[in-house]
């Protein structure tokens, strides 16, 4: 375990590191994020079919997201804890509003037009764990069963509304984030086993509630060849792209699957397949390692956090980031059904970049606003 960096004193770091510290930014996390973001730009340029405009838009979003991250990092975690319930319920209200009047984008109501188009579900990715952490912050852990039931309700409300939009990918991720908080809070293993068993039992019900296209995705996962030009097309083409990359890949801008548009959603959800095709097994392994390093840093920050709220929030954000990476890569390689989850920090598009970096801003705030307590 690394010793808390604050204790070593500023003089042991370089001037850049010193500057970052004073700006409440974490150097290790920054390094990891910057490397992945930079690699992501190269990949995205290729994956978009050399679309410079798209890349410019992507860089602009990264700029905005980075700004949000820096701002969030300045906010003291204690203040965040105080506003957490307000943000949560405001988000819930907006979700209800989206269902009532939201814009339709990509066949689903996800957007709220408030000057800028905005997805309330993205806000909930941070608001849900913050709310749960707030609930637990001055209580003795592990939480009681009653408290756990209350938390499940707080999770279920936004997840249900998001699933209705319908946006199954985000709903699942928020559900998993909430579950991560409960797990990190130390709930007994027997409850986890019981919940898992219940989840399996609930599957038929879930199946019944799923949209036809969602059912199709699950069926397609089980047998993609059955519908090669329809629902199975994504998975087949993605597997061809990754597999044909081999060990070293076809080289940047040389992946035929991606460049010739055989790969659907190549610049968004399926960008991992482009990486696999152009950079091969070596490339995807390195990328996964980079992600794991970022996650490891997140876990270290969470473990070193000084209060329950910081700890749970930082831990669940890190776990969620891992879920992102895992669900996306597993889906693109055909291990999981195709749920619309982008590859974090690399996929083009939307609010998710802002949410992601805002989450890392929270991690940095947790790391840098600690009181210098002697251990």
């Amino acid at each position: 375990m690394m010793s808390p960096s604050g204790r070593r004193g500023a003089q042991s770091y370089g001037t850049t590191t010193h500057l970052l510290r004073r700006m409440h930014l974490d150097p290790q996390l920054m390094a990891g994020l910057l490397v992945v973001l930079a690699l992501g730009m190269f990949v995205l340029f290729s994956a978009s079919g050399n679309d410079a405009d798209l890349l410019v838009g992507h860089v602009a979003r990264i700029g905005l997201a980075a700004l949000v991250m820096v701002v969030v990092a300045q906010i003291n975690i204690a203040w965040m804890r105080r506003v957490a319930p307000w943000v949560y319920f405001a988000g819930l209200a907006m979700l209800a509003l989206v269902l009532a009047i939201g814009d339709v984008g990509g066949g689903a109501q996800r957007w709220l037009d408030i000057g800028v188009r905005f997805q309330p579900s993205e806000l909930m990715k941070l608001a849900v764990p913050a709310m749960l952490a707030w609930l637990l912050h001055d209580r003795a852990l592990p939480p009681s069963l009653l408290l756990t039931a209350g938390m499940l309700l707080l999770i279920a409300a936004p997840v249900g509304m998001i699933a209705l939009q319908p946006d199954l990918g985000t709903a699942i991720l928020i559900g998993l984030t909430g579950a991560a908080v409960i797990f990190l809070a130390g709930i007994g293993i027997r409850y986890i086993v019981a919940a898992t068993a219940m989840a399996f039992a609930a599957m038929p019900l879930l199946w019944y509630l799923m949209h036809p296209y969602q059912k199709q995705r699950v069926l397609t996962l089980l047998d993609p060849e059955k519908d090669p030009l329809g629902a199975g097309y994504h998975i087949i083409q993605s597997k061809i792209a990754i597999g044909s990359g081999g060990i070293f890949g076809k080289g940047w801008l040389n992946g035929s699957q991606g460049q010739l548009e055989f790969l659907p959603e190549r610049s968004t959800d399926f960008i991992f397949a482009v990486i696999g095709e152009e950079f091969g097994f070596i490339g995807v392994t390195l990328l996964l390692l980079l992600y794991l390093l970022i996650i490891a840093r997140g876990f270290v920050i969470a473990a070193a956090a000084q209060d329950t709220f910081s700890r749970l929030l930082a831990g669940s954000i890190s776990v969620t980031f891992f879920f992102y990476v895992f669900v996306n890569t597993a889906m693109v390689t055909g291990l999981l059904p195709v749920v619309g989850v982008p590859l974090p920090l690399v996929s083009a598009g939307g609010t998710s970049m802002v949410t992601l970096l805002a989450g890392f801003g929270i991690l940095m705030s947790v790391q840098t606003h600690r009181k210098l307590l002697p251990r």
Partner: protein
Amino acid sequence: MDYTRQIKDHWREQRLFTRRIIACSVIAVLLSGTVLTRLAILQLVNAEYYAAQSQGNRIRVQPLPPARGLIFDRNQNILAENTPSYQLEVTPEQVPDLEDTLTRLESSGLIKSESTGRIRNLIASKRRFDSIPIRQGMSDDEVARFAVLRPYFPGVEIRARLARYYPYGNIAAHALGYVSGISAADQEMLDPAEYAGSAYIGKVAVERAFEPDLHGLPGHQDVLVNVRGRMMQVLDTELAVPGRDLILSLDINAQMTAEAELEGRRGAVVAIDPSNGEILVFASAPGFDPNGFIRGLSREEFRTLQNDADQPLFNRALRGAYPPGSTIKPMLALAGLEQNSSLATQRVYCRGYYSLPGNPHRYRDWKPEGHGLINLHDAVAQSCDTYFYEMANELGIDIISRTLMDFGLGTSTDIDIGPESNGLVPTREWKRRNFSAPEDQIWFPGETVITGIGQGYLLATPLQLAHATATIAARGKRFRPSMVQGIRDPMTGAIAQRQPRELTPVHVSNASNWDQIVSAMEAVITDPRGTARAIGMDAPWSIAGKSGTAQVFSVAQNETYNKEELAERMRDHALFVAFAPVEEPRIAVAVIVENGGSGSGVAGPVARKVLDTYLGGAAL
């Protein structure tokens, strides 16, 4: 809510949290390991399989159809060419509103209202990025009209494609044949790789027989395509090898003369160069316009062609088998000379009919009052039937049939645009094999008698008659009739001449026998009593010929027959064979006019005009 709040044990809670974080780390590593394993299976174990899949995804091989070889006549007149034909093509994915576009095209008169249903089906059957032809053979006026409207029709284009075109239309249609869409039957015969991208295939005659030369070899383009099949980049191009050009021995002017003469009749004209067997004229009437098959005949048009009582699609020159009538008399005369028949050297008295010894049946002469005392020369010139009845009886069927076969009758001439009809030269053997009743299997002497004037079972095609006439003109030398003189490689321009192929000659023991025959045939035209004296008038070259009038309908004994009373189709076939100049023959011709009546009166003038056009060139 939980009011009996426990005291927070910070140290214990932190240890619990750290354990959970470690658990999360382990789970993360395990799940990442699962993904990595999956990646290893895809990229390391099955890499080759997926690499092959991705190759197949991106490269398409597009055929480049070759340009079909051109066809020329012997004087470099072009008989079949490829012309750009303008067609309207629509690419559905580029059309904002297909229905609206079709409606507007229809109202502007560019597509016919009755074809819109077919067009909709066609579009539905193709891919959205395909360019689909919806209207072929646009006129210049229509092209101009569309050019003005073009901005209002996104996704609709005019494209020039090569289509076969026969500039002479009907002329020589039976010699050239035509090309048409590749049928299911064609598909089974051909190598699909060679016809990838080809829309047409030769159907009959030259276009069919020389299909391998004319078609050429397709090239191909390896193109990089995107997922919609749209071409992104051409990786490799192998150009098509155009088909070879054919130079026919046909003389289009003589051909046009022949067809003009046959206009409104049923019949055939075949002319051959006796010195090498080259076909000069090959006409069969009525004909058809082969351009119609390129355009695509409507069901209605095709039915009309097929059901026409005159059978315009039937190649009479090649497959029409007719009784040759008196046109075989010179060959029989030659046989008589060769056999040293007593008849060949003495005169016979013709009283207008012939009877076999001990049989009252009268075989009539065409001249009821008879020709009187007549020798071989005059018997040919005046076409005395009685003389040849007697000659036939003396020679016997075996010698007659062998002689006719020596001249190529009764067997395939092996012309290069077959298949042809073999005609029929009857023999005892043939009769035995082809009749079921034993009493019919015997050869009767009476049958020999009528074979002597080219009636009875005897059948010959116009091609065979022209070939036999050419053989007489060449004094026994025989050549395989050939339509194609040379084959030109369009890449190098080199012409491969097709050498004349000599067939077994007609052997004579005494060369002067030919002189006697030829002189008798010349007398047909020059002698004051020659049957065809009328056609020799003012001829700038010496002509030898023989008329023939073949009975289609037998007249009963003791009946005179009245031409007027017979239905047109019961009338005799008119035949005429001739060659010229006699001294050094350059052309031998056979003419048949179905139900034409008199050979010398109807078929003779046709032969004369064809000879004149060919020998006189364009001047006449």
